[in-house]
């Protein structure tokens, strides 16, 4: 051992601490602790929190978007179902209304037909009456003319035949 060393480190037992080193160790370590605690740990923690936030926020946003999409889909589906139902009722109504209209038209047509038939019958009746009347007049005139002829001219088969015609006609007249 050289003399300098012996003077410097009197105790060679390495397990015996130095007062100066104890003090320095205490101060230096405390100092480092304060620096790291004040200036370093909060900043790293802030970065960690921001990172967690960014990741979680992104996931939450995605979840929210999915929920919204699902809600929209459900809404569309229900709207579609509503529309289908509505169309069904409209069709049903239209069918009912159509049937009613057809029924109404049919009734009207029948009524019209009845009316036309009735007026036609009346007209026919009137015309027949008129024809009968004029026929009667003409037949009278003809009969008068025939009688005058019968009186004036000789009788033959044809005359007899006409007589039969006359009788028939007059019978017809009577039966009426």
């Amino acid at each position, binding site marked *: 051992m050289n003399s300098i060393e012996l003077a410097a480190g009197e105790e060679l037992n390495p397990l015996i601490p130095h007062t100066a080193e104890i003090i320095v160790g205490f101060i230096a370590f405390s100092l480092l602790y304060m620096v790291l605690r004040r200036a370093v740990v909060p900043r790293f923690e802030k*970065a960690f929190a921001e990172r967690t936030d960014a990741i979680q926020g992104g996931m939450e946003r995605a979840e929210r978007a999915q929920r919204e999409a699902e809600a929209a889909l459900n809404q569309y589906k229900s709207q579609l179902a509503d529309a289908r139902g509505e169309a069904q009722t409209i069709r049903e109504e239209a069918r009912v209304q159509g049937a009613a209209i057809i029924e109404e038209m049919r009734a009207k047509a029948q009524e019209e037909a009845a009316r036309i038939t009735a007026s036609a019958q009346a007209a026919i009746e009137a015309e027949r009456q008129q024809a009968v009347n004029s026929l009667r007049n003409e037949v009278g005139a003809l009969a008068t003319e025939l009688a005058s002829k019968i009186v004036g001219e000789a009788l033959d088969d044809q005359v007899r035949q006409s007589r039969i015609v006359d009788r028939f006609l007059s019978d017809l007249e009577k039966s009426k």
Partner: protein
Amino acid sequence: MVFVSYAAKGEGFNPPDAGDFNLPPFIEGNEFATKPILLVFLSVLLISVFFIISSRKAAVVPSKLQFAGESIYSFVRNDLGREVIGHEFMRFVPYLFTLFTFILVNNIFGIVPLIQFPTMSRISFPYVLAAFTFFIFHYVGIRKQGFFKYMKEIMFLPGIPKPAYILITPLELATYFLVRPMTLSLRLFANMFAGHLLLLVFILGGEHLLQGVIGLKLVSPFSFLIGIALTFFEFMVQCLQAYIFTLLTALYIAGALADEH
């Protein structure tokens, strides 16, 4: 420093010993002007500057520097804090973080060229750190459970036949109040001390062999090679010791916080 001491030892190889760790103050008579003390302050400066710069613009998408600082921080925070302590871990993260970085950097000083002195091979510093841990975990336990309940939990383990307490209680008391702080500090100290001594033996030995006869000169490179290999090994030990010290601190805190052992 070591070279000076070697030269002063004169002829013949004097193997490095505990005296090589007692570096003289560079200002005569000033106990605070020593290499270890300077290194401790240097480590505080380096750690502070590195983490302040790397966390200054802490953003969601980290820069390379932020990523580097953040990786170390989140390692301590998650793997040592959250995993071990549980839901109350955030209170202790600054302490664990300081502990880990402080020990790590001071250990690595042991293999950094030109510095090459592991500060933690000076027992004073492990003592200080172990004392911090000792007071913190006892304080946490007493705060959490009350003094008497905490002491009872330590002294009387549940589920043990009563006569066994004669044996178990002194052992438990010794564990909590002597063994834990002593092993914490001594483990760290001894690893750094022995590691540095090993490096000194092979590198100074190689240097000494180089000054010997031709046969010894030929052996010298092997000594240096082993020294280099041991440097890598030392790096592993240095990281591991920083990890173990912090892990045990977290475990002790977790134990004090837990309602039952």
